[in-house]
C-alpha cells in the first residue's frame, strides 16, 4: 500500500468553528426578533422554558452522551444553581449575572466532588450517587431557613430593565445567550481531544487507559462541566418567577427531561440535545394547557422508556449519524 494510494484525510484536524458560532448567533437573533415582533409576554416565558432545557440537555449530554456516564441528579444540580443565586443575592446583593457565575462554580464543584468520590468505581455507582445527591440537597434546602426552607424564597425583581421592553424579555435573552454558550461548549468538547477521549472511554474504558488516555482526569472534567452547566441552567430560575420553593426547584420534570431530551434527540452529538429539548419542550408547553402536569410528565416517562428501547440512538440516529 503506497503513500499515493492513501484516501483523502478527513478534515478532523481543522474543525470549522466560525460557521457554527455565526450560525448559532444568527438563529438566536432570529428567535429574539421573532418573539419581539409577536410582542406577547407569554412567548418569552415559553421560550425561557424551552431554552432552559436546551442548556440542561446539552449539559447532560457532555457526560452521558460522550462519556457514557448517566447523571440522574439534574434536578439537584439545577436547584443548586438556583439556590446559589438566591444565597448570593441575599448575602451579597449580587444580581443575575454574578449569580450565574457563582452557580456555575458551586454546581461545578458538586459535580467534581461526586465524580471524585465515585468515578474510580463502576459507572453505576456514579449514577446512584447523583440520585442520592439530589435527595440530600433537597433535604438540606428544606431545613435551611435562610433560603426559606419549604416555604420558599422571594426575589424582588425590577419591573423593567434598561434596553429591554420588559424584564421578561431580559431574562429570556439571558437564557438565550446561555443556551448558545451551552450548545457551543458541547460542540467544542465534541470536536476536541477531550471529546475523543470521552468517546474512547465510553466505548472501552480499559483500552483507553491502556493507550495513554488519562481516563479519570477526563471523566472528572466532564462531571465538572456537566454540573456547572446544569447549575447555570438553574441560576436564573428564581429571577424568572420572582419566587422559588424546593418543590419547584427540585422538580422531577428536570430530572426526567434532562435524560429524555438528549436520548430522544440523539445523544453523542451536540445537535441531539437541542432537537430533543425543542421538540419535547414544545410538546410539554403545548400540553400543559390541555392536560394535568402529572399526566404530562407521565407521558414523558413513557416516551423515554419507549425511545430508549426501540430507538436507542434517538432521532438523529434514525438519520444515519453515528
Amino acid at each position, binding site marked *: *500500500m503506497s*503513500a499515493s*494510494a*492513501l*484516501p483523502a*484525510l*478527513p478534515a*478532523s*484536524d481543522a474543525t470549522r468553528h466560525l460557521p457554527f458560532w455565526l450560525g448559532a448567533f444568527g438563529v438566536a437573533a432570529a428567535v429574539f426578533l421573532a418573539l419581539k415582533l409577536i410582542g406577547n409576554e407569554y412567548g418569552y416565558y415559553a421560550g425561557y422554558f424551552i431554552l432552559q432545557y436546551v442548556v440542561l440537555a446539552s449539559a447532560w449530554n457532555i457526560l452521558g452522551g460522550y462519556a457514557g456516564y448517566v447523571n440522574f441528579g439534574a434536578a439537584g444540580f439545577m436547584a443548586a444553581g438556583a439556590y446559589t443565586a438566591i444565597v448570593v443575592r441575599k448575602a451579597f446583593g449580587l444580581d443575575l449575572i454574578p449569580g450565574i457565575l457563582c452557580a456555575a462554580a458551586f454546581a461545578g464543584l458538586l459535580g467534581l466532588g461526586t465524580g471524585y468520590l465515585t468515578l474510580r468505581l463502576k459507572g453505576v455507582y456514579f449514577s446512584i450517587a447523583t440520585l442520592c445527591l439530589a435527595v440530600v440537597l433537597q433535604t438540606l434546602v428544606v431545613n435551611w431557613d435562610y433560603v426559606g426552607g419549604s416555604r420558599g424564597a422571594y426575589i424582588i425583581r425590577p419591573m423593567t430593565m434598561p434596553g429591554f421592553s420588559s424584564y421578561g424579555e431580559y431574562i429570556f435573552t439571558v437564557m438565550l445567550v446561555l443556551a448558545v454558550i451551552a450548545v457551543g461548549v458541547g460542540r467544542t468538547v465534541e470536536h476536541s*481531544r477531550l471529546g*475523543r*477521549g470521552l*468517546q*474512547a472511554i*465510553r*466505548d*472501552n474504558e*480499559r*483500552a*483507553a*487507559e*491502556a*493507550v*495513554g*488516555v*488519562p*481516563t*479519570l482526569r477526563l471523566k472528572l472534567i466532564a462531571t465538572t462541566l456537566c454540573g456547572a452547566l446544569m447549575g447555570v441552567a438553574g441560576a436564573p430560575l428564581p429571577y424568572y418567577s420572582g419566587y422559588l420553593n424546593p418543590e419547584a426547584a427540585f422538580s422531577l420534570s428536570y430530572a426526567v427531561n434532562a435524560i429524555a431530551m438528549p436520548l430522544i434527540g440523539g445523544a*453523542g452529538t451536540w445537535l441531539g440535545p437541542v432537537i430533543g429539548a425543542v421538540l419535547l419542550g414544545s410538546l410539554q408547553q403545548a400540553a400543559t394547557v390541555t392536560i394535568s402536569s402529572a399526566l404530562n410528565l407521565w407521558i414523558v416517562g413513557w416516551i423515554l422508556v419507549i425511545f430508549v428501547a426501540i430507538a436507542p440512538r434517538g432521532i438523529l440516529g434514525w438519520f444515519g449519524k*453515528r
Partner: protein
Amino acid sequence: MSVLLKAEQVGKRFGGFVALQEVDLELRAGERLGLIGPNGSGKSTFVNCISGDFAQHDGKVTLAGQPIDGLKPHMRARRGLARTFQLPQPFNSLSVLENVRVPLLFAGAAGESTRRAMECLEQVELAGKSQKLPRELTQVEQRRLELARAISLRPQLLIADEAMAGLSNAEVDQIIALLLRLNEAGTAVIMIEHIMRAVTAFAERLIVFVAGRKIADGLPREVLALQEVEDAYLGKQ
C-alpha cells in the same frame, strides 16, 4: 543490551487464591520473549501486573530503570509500555483511523496525529480501511488494528496477549511477520501464546508459567525439551 523490564518477586492473590507467586523476570531492550503455560497459570495475571490493570501486587516492577508500581496504565503507556488484549478491544464508535489517533492526541502529538496514525495503519496494512468502523473488519484485521493502536506511541515494550487466538494458519503467519517487523524497528515484544509454532518461530527466549510460578527460562528449544514443561502441558502434575 540494557535491561528494559525487570520484575522482582511479583505476586498476586485474590482473596485466598494465589494467582502468581515470586516471579522474577528480566527483559532486555529489543528482546523477543515468549511466555507460555497452561490456562490459569498466571500469564495474564502477570501481564496485568506489568500493565497496571492490577494496581496492587507483591514485588517490584521496573521499566527502563524507573519503578512503575502504583502508576496507572495510562502513565505506563506514556513511559513506553503498550499491550494488546486477548479479545480485541477497539473503540467501536470511532473509525479505524480515529482509533489509532486517540493515543496520539494524548501524547502531545495532536498536530501530526493523522499522519502518524496513517503510518501505523500502513505498517499493519490497514491504511485502505481507515474510514471503516471496527465492526466492519475481519477478526484478523481487528487484531491488526489493535496492534496499530498499540504501536502508535512507538513503545519500547509491546505485550501481545494471545494476539493470534482464533486465527487461521495464514493469518497467524501474517501476525508473526508483523510482530517481527515491529521488533526490527526496536520494540521489545513479550508474546503470550498457546500456538506453539508461533512461539518457536518468533521468540528468542521462552518463559514457562505453571500454577502461578515461573518454572523455566531459556532458549525455546531447550525449554520445550524440559520434562517439567512437558508434564505441565500433559497434566502429569
